[in-house]
């Protein structure tokens, strides 16, 4: 009977093309809006390192001003980043299996192998080499620099795929050199496509920005006096005239992550940082109450409110808009179905049960929902394109994948069926004789 009802549904839509188009458009608009906001929300609220959530921890210590908290709205939270010297102290511990200390900086790249390429600015990450295995960063060519580059300054660099395209035309550039701020760096690795969304490892410097375009060893920060290109927050009135003074200051600007594969290691490292802070207190630092945290990625994303309330409100509004569209669709369906009541009466007289009539109309609203959903995907794609045009750094958030496409169709068919339930029930409830009199 399904194929028969499907054929009847298509005939019915052709019988009233204007009403059909209005209903499909209403559902498509509602679904399009929902999918646009849901796509952004879903990517915002995802955890791209979910598979390593149990072993990774962001380290935070409360070295902030004893007179007031870092964030008045969340006085219980320590600053999200560390001072340089505290971050260096973390590296002293051998408890973590792996450890990343890192910050953001920038370089001018001067391609010398390609005559047509002009110098260009890049965002860069200065980090320990554990960054790559800890965060499951995929390599296209080569790999991370060796441990020796973490301990002694070496001019090694890992390029993003995009930077390698720009500088070397996408060739395997491992072993070749690239000029950064006038210094020659040896390429040791080239990343494959990698777009963690949100950028969990540094949510305070553009949680939805792309990853940096190149990566250099942390040992170069002091050596080359690499400035911070990320948020740098200072509370203490202290001299900051030289880079050395900056590194020794109470300014927070360095991110710290550790890999702790067992609960014992977690407890041991927690004890380590608590002991460290207690020692620092004796030296006159860390005057606020002990407030150290090790947070797994999902908690880290939540505490830092990567998904803001206005995003949730936007999703809510989109669903309310869908509800309004559905109310309109209900009205149109009611008019359409009751208008065709004589035909229903005829089918009932010829032996169709209420169940058969109900099924026939549900198939029809399902078809309306399905077509509306497909059109809604197109509208959502246009909506996401609009978001991309408005916000340059929202590329990562505006990708609609197969899952969202299926969700769109699911929402649309469900919406169509929900909108159709009442009109279908109404048309099934009328006596067949009453229908026939109007035929």
């Amino acid at each position: 009977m399904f194929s028969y009802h499907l054929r009847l549904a298509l005939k019915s839509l052709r019988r009233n093309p204007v009403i059909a188009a209005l209903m499909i458009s209403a559902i498509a608009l509602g679904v399009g809006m929902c999918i646009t906001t849901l796509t952004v929300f879903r990517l915002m609220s995802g955890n791209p390192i979910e598979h390593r959530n149990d072993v990774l921890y962001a380290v935070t210590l409360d070295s902030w001003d004893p007179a007031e908290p870092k964030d008045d709205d969340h006085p219980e939270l320590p600053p999200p980043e560390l001072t340089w010297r505290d971050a260096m102290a973390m590296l002293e511990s051998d408890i973590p299996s792996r450890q990343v200390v890192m910050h953001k900086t920038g370089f001018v790249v001067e391609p010398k192998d390609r005559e047509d390429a002009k110098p260009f600015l890049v965002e860069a990450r200065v980090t320990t080499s554990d960054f790559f295995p800890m965060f499951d960063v995929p390599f296209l060519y080569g790999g991370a620099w060796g441990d020796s580059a973490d301990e002694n300054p070496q001019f090694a660099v890992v390029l993003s795929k995009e930077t390698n395209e720009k500088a070397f035309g996408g060739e395997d550039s491992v072993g070749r050199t690239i000029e950064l701020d006038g210094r020659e760096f040896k390429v040791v690795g080239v990343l494959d496509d990698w777009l963690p969304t949100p950028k969990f490892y540094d949510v305070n410097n553009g949680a939805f920005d792309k990853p940096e375009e190149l990566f250099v060893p942390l040992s170069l920060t002091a050596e080359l006096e690499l400035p911070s290109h990320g948020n740098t927050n200072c509370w203490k009135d202290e001299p900051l005239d030289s880079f050395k003074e900056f590194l020794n200051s109470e300014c927070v600007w360095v991110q710290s992550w550790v890999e702790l594969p067992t609960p014992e290691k977690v407890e041991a490292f927690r004890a380590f940082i608590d002991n460290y802070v207690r020692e620092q207190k004796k030296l006159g630092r860390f005057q606020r109450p002990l407030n150290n945290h090790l947070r797994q990625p999902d908690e880290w994303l939540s505490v830092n409110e990567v998904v803001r309330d206005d995003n949730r409100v936007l999703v809510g509004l989109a669903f309310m808009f869908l509800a309004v569209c559905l109310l309109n669709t209900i009205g149109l369906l009611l008019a359409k179905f009751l208008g065709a009541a004589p035909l229903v009466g005829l089918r009932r007289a010829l032996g169709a049960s209420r169940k058969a009539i109900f099924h026939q109309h549900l198939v029809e609203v399902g078809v309306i929902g399905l077509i509306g959903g497909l059109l809604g995907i197109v509208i959502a794609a246009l909506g996401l394109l609009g978001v991309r045009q408005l916000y340059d750094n929202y590329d990562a958030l505006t990708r609609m994948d197969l899952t969202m496409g299926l969700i769109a169709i699911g929402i649309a068919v469900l919406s169509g069926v929900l909108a159709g339930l009442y009109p279908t029930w109404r048309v099934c409830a009328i006596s067949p004789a009453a229908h026939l009199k109007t035929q």
Partner: protein
Amino acid sequence: MLSMSDISKVYRTDLIETHALRKFSLEVKEGEFVAVTGPSGSGKTTFLNIAGLLETFDTGTYKLDNEDVSRLSDDARSRIRNQKIGFIFQSFNLIPDLDLFDNVDVPLRYRGMSAAERKRRITESLELVGLASRIKHIPAQLSGGQQQRVAIARALAGSPRILFADEPTGNLDSLMARQVVDLLDDINRRGTTIVMVTHDTELARRAHRNVHVMDGQVTDLQSYTTKPLVRPEALAAG
């Protein structure tokens, strides 16, 4: 075949009660061709709707084909309508955007028949009414008389035990009306019981028996002996 006893039906609104049928009793034997006549508002259509299980009634008993159908569920009534009853309406009631094949197919679809069986029945019934060559036409491409013949083919395709016709010639000119009545006559001779509501006294005279309805009650029964009552078993034997 049809046995109604003391059937009452009242339509109620907030302001008035209308007694459509009052203690309505009627017996129709298998193979009979009965014409129900009466003025407008006398209860003819209500009788036909109740007899065709399109409406329920308030009191009384109704047996159709020896089965008490007085208090059946909606599903059971649909099944009986589909398997035992055929309808012919004054305004033909064909579905305008379906071709003749699909129109005749409607009742068969709800019987769960195989495609081959449905096709055989549709072709046979359209051949019976002389419209097999128009199988892909839509109703608007046919005359009124042809449309009514399609409606008859649709009613016959399911091999009903009884055929209810509501003013089957009401929308036709005299020539086409005669053709339709001849067709009904032929169907009756093949053994199908027919109950026909009509205003047309000439048409009513073609039936075996006339039942006159007034104010929701049977007031007069008249038999016409010129027409023999043909039993299905006689047809089968002949």
